[in-house]
């Protein structure tokens, strides 16, 4: 048997039991990673992950897979850096090929305001142990000669870029499957086509969930449902600071040459990278109106295609192959919301918006530690839901859709 077949993911599906120690709602990356870390780090294996459709069918299988830690506030820089490091060893740890590839990310700026912002980013990143550099246009050309520095005939000249060499991508489905398989191997039940339709309460506590297959009792219930978080919080009688917005992406046909980095223009509002198949993968801003619809639109394509081909002229000759949409749990400060809720027995991991794929390993690690020890890890304490009440918001415009 060749190495590829030996390392193929083997998923063994469980059956719903009436009780678990921990129930996780949502089989996206964050739910699966929480289960994986509970099982592998804390020996907590009487755990169910309930997924209403199929694992990775939400944003964790729809994203553009950028992994980086060049954030704008120290709390987030440290957290995402932990995740970057965990991704670097995830392949070895799970013994599954997640196609993790270091690429480096360029964030080019075309205005003086952008230039100041990205210089500041490189300083604050370095002060927090992340090696983001500020590059001159000549240095950008060394990394990506394909970028036209004279964008739009000099209308939007590239003035510089912040650059994180450690930035990478990984195949999203494989990340989800590797974590699911690792959790299953330790006895976790991952249950697909299992939808939570209500929470079971005992007085002020949540003590279980009702699914389309019956009731489950569990002392700990974790909501990890991406853009659908408001529905779960409604079941608990909680209002939260999340609005659900669509985010679109597209890929082109195969570009026959290699394009190494992840390139993003902050001022022109898009980012692009090359997939392992050679397609050019691009994303941009969120839709302005909140929505749960997966509709993708032509307006999105035409608005960003124009800017992209000015920046990377070779893209003029490519065709758009596929376009799709995910629905994102946007928090008001663009920072995650993780940890306890005012309702005992109910934990959340949300506010992953357009930026949560990179956070899957560190997010699950921290949620698992909170569940296992009953103490909120220092790394995620700043991300608690009560920060809004306590005037401790962490405004950070460091992801798509936050400008």
């Amino acid at each position: 048997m060749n190495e590829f077949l030996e390392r193929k993911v083997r998923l063994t599906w469980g059956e719903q039991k009436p009780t678990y120690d921990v129930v996780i709602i949502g089989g996206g990356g964050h739910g699966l990673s929480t289960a994986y870390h509970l099982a592998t780090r804390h020996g907590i294996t009487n755990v169910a992950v309930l997924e209403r459709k199929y694992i990775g069918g939400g944003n964790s299988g729809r994203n553009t897979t950028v992994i980086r830690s060049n954030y704008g506030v120290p709390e987030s820089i440290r957290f995402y850096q932990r995740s970057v490091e965990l991704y670097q060893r995830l392949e070895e740890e799970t013994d599954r090929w997640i196609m993790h590839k270091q690429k480096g990310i360029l964030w080019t700026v075309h205005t003086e305001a952008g230039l100041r912002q990205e210089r500041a980013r490189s300083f604050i990143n370095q002060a927090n142990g992340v090696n983001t550099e500020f590059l001159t246009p000549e240095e950008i050309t060394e990394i990506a000669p394909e970028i036209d520095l004279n964008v739009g005939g000099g209308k939007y000249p590239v003035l510089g870029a912040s650059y994180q060499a450690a930035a990478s991508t990984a195949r999203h489905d494989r990340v989800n499957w590797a974590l699911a398989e690792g959790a299953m191997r330790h006895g976790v039940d991952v249950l697909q086509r299992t939808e939570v339709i209500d929470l079971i309460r005992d007085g002020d506590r949540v003590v279980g969930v009702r699914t389309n297959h019956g009731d489950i009792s569990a002392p700990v219930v974790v909501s990890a449902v991406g853009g659908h978080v408001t529905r779960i919080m409604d079941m608990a009688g909680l209002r939260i600071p999340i609005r659900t917005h669509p985010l679109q992406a597209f890929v082109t046909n195969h570009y026959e040459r290699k394009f190494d980095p992840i390139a993003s223009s902050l001022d022109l509002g898009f980012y692009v990278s090359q997939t392992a198949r050679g397609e050019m993968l691009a994303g941009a801003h969120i839709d302005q109106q909140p929505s749960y619809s997966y509709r993708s639109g032509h307006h999105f394509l035409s608005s960003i295609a124009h800017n992209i081909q000015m920046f990377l002229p070779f893209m003029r000759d490519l065709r758009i192959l596929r376009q799709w949409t995910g629905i994102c749990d946007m928090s008001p400060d663009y920072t995650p919301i993780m940890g306890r809720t005012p309702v005992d027995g109910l934990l959340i991991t949300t506010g992953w918006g357009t930026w949560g794929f990179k956070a899957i390993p560190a997010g699950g690690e921290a949620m698992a530690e909170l569940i296992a020890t009953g103490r909120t890890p220092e790394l995620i304490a700043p991300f608690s839901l009560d920060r809004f009440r306590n005037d401790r918001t962490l405004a950070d415009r460091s992801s798509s859709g936050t400008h």
Partner: protein
Amino acid sequence: MSIRITCEHCGTRPLEEYVYGEVLDVPATIADPAERNLDRAFNHTNPEGPVPEAWFHLYGCRRWITIVRDTATDRIVD
């Protein structure tokens, strides 16, 4: 297909001509004024289904209109 929104003044126009307006939806059940302010500043009802909302016709008549949009399908219901 792009979403089209009907403005009572200009007729049916593509969504991109409009700007989505904040829906202020603090529930009446929240009585305490400080709690109402907190809710208004951060929380959202974020409903999945038909919801009345205000849009500004920026690239049209520059007036506010109210429509009912189903956020599950993006269909304009009313």
